[in-house]
């Protein structure tokens, strides 16, 4: 979707203002927000692509005004309600009113080290050979889906060169919507800045994205 999250090339956000000796967390609630987000993800009720899509669905004015942990919490609220773990009223008042859905797994303290160390690998075998090879010229798709995609707007309908064949991975555009993992080959595609940004582009710049095979066509 063309949501507020798709920020590449937008302007007007001001200085980056890196903070010297930045602490890991700026408030106690950020620690809890991290832990709640990971704990709820461990239910196994939704996947990381659905989480990302929930974040993209935050209305633009809220998204752009929120810190990242706030974005996470807003998305967790949406997901808890969507998947029947909590009602809107329970989320509003912060107390349990009824027995909701029971998850497959509740993350207990003694499970944390193992779960974090394992992570969530999303490479999957496919039974087709890659369509493209390093050095091939490819053009990215032009589309504007209302659903999840990881092809950013700035890199649509652009011609680049395959820089690496990275393996085959779960396809987020399907996985975010419960349509299955449907793995595809992923390629690193590199673009000259002039192809993306046109007039006035920095000639010393190249930009790459990692693109699923169905985003690409041969030129």
């Amino acid at each position, binding site marked *: 979707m063309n949501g507020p999250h798709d920020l590449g090339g937008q302007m007007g956000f001001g200085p980056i203002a890196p903070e010297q000796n930045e602490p890991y967390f700026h408030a106690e609630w950020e620690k809890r927000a991290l832990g*709640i987000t990971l704990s709820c993800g461990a239910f196994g009720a939704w996947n990381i692509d659905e989480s990302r899509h929930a974040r993209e669905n935050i209305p633009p004015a809220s998204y752009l005004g929120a810190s990242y942990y706030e974005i996470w919490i807003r998305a967790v609220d949406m997901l808890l309600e969507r998947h029947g773990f909590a009602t809107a009223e329970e989320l509003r008042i912060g107390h349990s009113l009824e027995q909701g859905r029971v998850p497959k797994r509740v993350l207990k303290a003694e499970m944390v080290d193992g779960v974090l160390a394992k992570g969530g690998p999303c490479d999957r075998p496919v039974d087709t050979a890659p369509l493209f090879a390093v050095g091939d010229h490819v053009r990215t798709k032009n589309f504007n889906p209302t659903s999840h995609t990881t092809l950013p707007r700035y890199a649509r309908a652009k011609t680049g060169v395959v820089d690496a064949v990275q393996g085959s991975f779960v396809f987020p555009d399907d996985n975010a919507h419960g349509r299955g993992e449907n793995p595809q080959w992923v390629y690193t595609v590199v673009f000259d800045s002039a192809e993306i940004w046109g007039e006035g582009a920095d000639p010393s710049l190249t930009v790459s994205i990692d693109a699923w095979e169905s985003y690409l066509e041969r030129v």
Partner: protein
Amino acid sequence: MSHGHSHADDNHHHGNHYSDMQARVKALETLLTEKGLIDPAAIDRIVETYETKVGPRNGAQVVAKAWSDSHFADWLRRDATAAIASLGFTGRQGEHMRAVFNTPETHNLVVCTLCSCYPWAVLGLPPVWYKAPAYRSRAVIDPRGVLAEFGLTLPQETRIRVWDSTAELRYLVIPERPAGSEDMDEAALADLVSRDAMIGTALAKAPPEATL
């Protein structure tokens, strides 16, 4: 939209809560604990992990070893996930690693324009600026302007390669080994490698004795 959830309703119901995140998150943790959906001690453990165990010192060890051991550097180029795992750094947001090496000709810079993808296993949790719109919007169109804000001005002839982490690959920049560090061991070398140098918004630091 495929799901019938009204976001206007979200704002209506929760708007006042989001204005006070401390209260909002406390209420959510209370609710989830009452429902038996979370274990507050698990949250403590997650926080402790990222405050004390998983952070940019991990990545700095990877870089120092790559500088010191050409076989390891080659392995990192070929299979960064395995090479990094050999040092004990694995897991969440480090499942599929790629190492990109700066050279005298090319400087690498990593961003996630769509969200906040970041190699947690080697760098820990991302800094606020990495997740914020200013960096995510500008890194791909004006990297020199971005680097200048970090105090880094590269020669005009240096090529800049920006890696937008749009899939599940997580990128670690291997900065160039600084001059004057030839006699340093891995532990001392790791001290020259900042988090920002491994994102690409800084270079490795000069060795202390080399600063004039």
